[in-house]
């Protein structure tokens, strides 16, 4: 594992080595979540967190055993009901 020394300049600015960013597949404009764990500063790319959460969601869906067809059918029913309710209000 290659390590880098990162210096903190005035106003707490710093430069993250290109190689680290390339390995994480992130670049200018991307956001990180930063936190301290065991006296270590951890930077985690937000898009990685989002993708992990998305995979977790897909796993929960798969484990439920409910088909997409059934979910889409219920979705159409929900929209129809909302429309019927709004019609009765107006």
């Amino acid at each position: 594992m290659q390590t880098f020394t990162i210096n903190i300049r005035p106003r707490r600015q710093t430069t993250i080595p290109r190689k680290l960013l390339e390995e994480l597949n992130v670049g200018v404009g991307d956001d990180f979540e930063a936190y301290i764990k065991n006296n270590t500063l951890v930077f985690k790319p937000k898009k990685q967190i989002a993708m992990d959460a998305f995979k977790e969601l897909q796993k929960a869906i798969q484990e439920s055993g409910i088909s997409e067809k059934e979910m889409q059918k219920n979705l159409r029913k929900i929209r129809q009901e909302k429309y019927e309710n709004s019609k009765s209000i107006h």
Partner: protein
Amino acid sequence: MKTPKVFIDSNVWFSAFYGSANCEKITEAHTENKIKAVISQKVLQEIVKNFTQKMPNALDPFIKTVSVIPSKIIRDPTKIPQHVKSLAHPKDQNILASAILAKVNCFVTDNTKHFKTNEIKKKTGIKIVTPKQAVKILNL
């Protein structure tokens, strides 16, 4: 170049959750800041209600997913403007009105047949497209 704003209908979100390749490309593009995903309060409520009714275990991972890189959530219009009423099926007019308010570039849905696509493009500039068409026109 400005990041395109894309309204994503609830049916497209569910297709992405179930692994449809084109729909996943669209949600991934949002995660990677290639597009800015827009939804309305109504779309969010539909998704939450669908999970609550059919799959409550998936609600927490869904909330986690949308909270990390949030979509822009547009308020539901209090009244459907008259000019919108002729452009979409009555039950879809509300979300079309939200998309127009949000000034999106395109609107992705599995139900393009519920919308007068040519007229909407002409009057509002919004392209109503299927996920497959969205992937093509947005170069995803």
